[in-house]
């Protein structure tokens, strides 16, 4: 595996909300490697977006990096305070595609101008040069007739087309890292597939490193090299796509995979994880998943598990992997992933 392009070390992020402090990211460490495609999965509120936003200094005003570091190009960007420092990264080196294309574009500026704005900011391109580049980018993201299209406004594009424009803005300045924050959630399934295909093509063409946030495991299977599973502001399991889908080790990952509707049997009730995620306003004792975990051990309620290395690429934060822990078998239904593995990869 190549050198890490971005290294997160023991990152803690907190928010102050109505006078109380919410511990949103609880000690996350993560290496992102040049050219890889990493998916971050987890339920709503698990901190997927917050984690990636902190790479670009896009945390809301009431949030801050409490401790830890984010090393990018030899600098610890977690220490960045001023807007000027962040502007050297945002859009230029790390770019982002947001969830809802219907609202992510300024309704009053034509899309040529909105792409051109990024080109001017980061590459100083103006006039004919910029126009030429905008046409190229539009063709890259599959928008035909760019000469005419670049003069049109967002309302003249459909949802899928708008997401292509948003992607065009993101890749305009050839960033090193592209963060896709649920880019297909707001789109219908056929368009989802097209946008995923587009992102895959662009990854190849522009040699992008991508971080893909989603809670759609079908999409993950489609696009990711590695998967990080987040729960309550922590990465509980991380491994290659195969390791997570075919040899998951963390009970939360088991539960998450069991929730895949494809694995259900006709007539059986769909699997759902019981209970609710912990309240991050309170400090979590032990393993955050313990109260919802049918395999929880006594120690899970008392002490936070460390990471156990299953393989050089596969790490799991669960006491079940301790040699003193009882042997536990993953749920039966997960074996069906093997049986229909191929179809899972095709899904989405």
């Amino acid at each position, binding site marked *: 595996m190549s050198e890490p392009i971005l290294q997160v070390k023991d990152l803690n992020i907190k928010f102050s909300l109505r006078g109380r402090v919410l511990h949103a990211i609880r000690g996350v460490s993560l290496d992102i490697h040049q050219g890889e495609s990493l998916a971050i999965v987890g339920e709503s509120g698990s901190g997927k977006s917050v984690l990636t936003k902190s790479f*670009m200094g*896009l945390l809301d005003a009431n949030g801050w990096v409490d401790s830890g570091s984010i090393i990018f190009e030899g600098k610890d960007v977690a220490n960045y305070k001023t*807007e000027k420092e962040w*502007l050297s*990264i*945002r*859009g*230029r080196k790390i*770019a*982002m595609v*947001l969830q*809802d294309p219907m*609202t*992510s*574009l*300024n*309704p*009053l*500026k*034509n899309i040529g101008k909105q792409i051109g*704005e*990024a080109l001017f*900011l*980061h590459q100083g391109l103006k006039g004919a040069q910029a126009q030429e580049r905008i046409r190229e980018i539009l063709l890259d993201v599959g928008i035909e007739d760019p000469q005419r299209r670049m003069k049109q*406004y967002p*309302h*003249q*594009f*459909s949802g899928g*087309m708008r997401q292509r424009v*948003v992607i065009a*803005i*993101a890749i305009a300045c050839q960033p090193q890292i592209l963060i896709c924050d649920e880019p297909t959630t707001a789109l219908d399934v056929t368009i989802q597939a097209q946008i995923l295909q587009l992102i895959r093509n662009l990854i190849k063409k522009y040699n992008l490193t991508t971080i893909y946030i989603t809670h759609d495991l079908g999409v993950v299977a489609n696009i990711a090299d590695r998967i990080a599973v987040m729960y309550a502001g922590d990465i509980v399991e991380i491994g290659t796509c195969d390791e997570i889908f075919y040899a998951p080790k963390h009970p939360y990952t088991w539960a998450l995979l069991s929730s895949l509707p494809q694995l259900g049997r006709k007539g059986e009730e769909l699997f759902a994880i019981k209970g609710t995620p912990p309240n991050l306003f309170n400090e979590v004792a032990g393993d955050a998943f313990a109260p919802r975990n049918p395999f929880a051990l006594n120690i899970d309620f008392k002490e936070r598990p460390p990471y156990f290395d299953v393989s050089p690429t596969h790490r799991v934060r669960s006491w079940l992997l301790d040699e003193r822990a009882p042997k536990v078998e993953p749920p039966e239904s997960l074996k069906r992933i093997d049986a229909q593995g191929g179809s899972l990869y095709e899904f989405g």
Partner: protein
Amino acid sequence: MLNYVGKRLLASVLTLLIILTVVFALMRQMPIEGYFDNFDKVAKPVVEAKLQQLGLRDPLWVQLKNFYAGLLQGDLGISNRYAVGVNIGSIIKAKAPVSIRMGLFSMALSLLVGIPLGAKMARSKSKIWDKLGTGFIVFINAVPAAVYYIYIQSYGSRLFNISMLFDMNNPVTWILPVVSMSLGSIAYYAMWLRRYMVDEMNKDYVKLARAKGVSGRNITMQHVFRNAFVPMIQYIPSSLLFTVAGSIYIESLYSIPGMGGLLVDVITRQDNTMVQTLVMIYASIGIIGMLLGDLLMAVIDPRISFSKVEGVR
């Protein structure tokens, strides 16, 4: 766009015709005393002769035709009680420029102060500027204007050592009335701009602009402000045109010989022709103002004039 302009223009002309006709018809229902300066002392035959001469004994449709013919030639009619025998056009010509000038100064001041204030308040939401601005807005809206108008007049004139009354030839005396007139609209512009800007700042396109690497200052100037100003720009032409109506209170406070209070004046004096003319002028201004506002909005916001013909794909 042309399509939209055409439709809007046609609708406005139709509305204007309907209003003019309705006002005209209503005024025919007014007592005939309104056409005479001293009705009680005039003999019946003389009354009849004057009504004949004014054309008020003609069938209604002939009267309407003559009325429109007169309007087309710029004839606004003749005052019969307010200033007997004087052409209404010339009365307005004498008064309107004063009101318009004061109104334009006041509008310029309101926009120049109100808009930066609103923008500053939105940028520093919940901080000191926002709180000071909110205090000002609440004060202006809660305290009756008459109260602070009088304070401004008496303390202001003492402070600058100038006359309490308006003097056409001394521009320094224009300051206090213009400032007084502006306070309300400064608060209005600041309040609405702040509100619309705060709304816009929470939209996704602002998040994308930040992720794109646009600085906070440029996001406010180039993205947020224009979007926030769309709903406000609609009212600018109306405000501009209505400066002609003047301000009743300010003009009487400073003895400004403007249009303010003219309509109320002619209504109490029952000068039928003048009431008719003034109501028509103000109604027309309202309609034209709205038309211009809509067109201005369409220029700024491409979604408004967007027709299905161009097609969404």
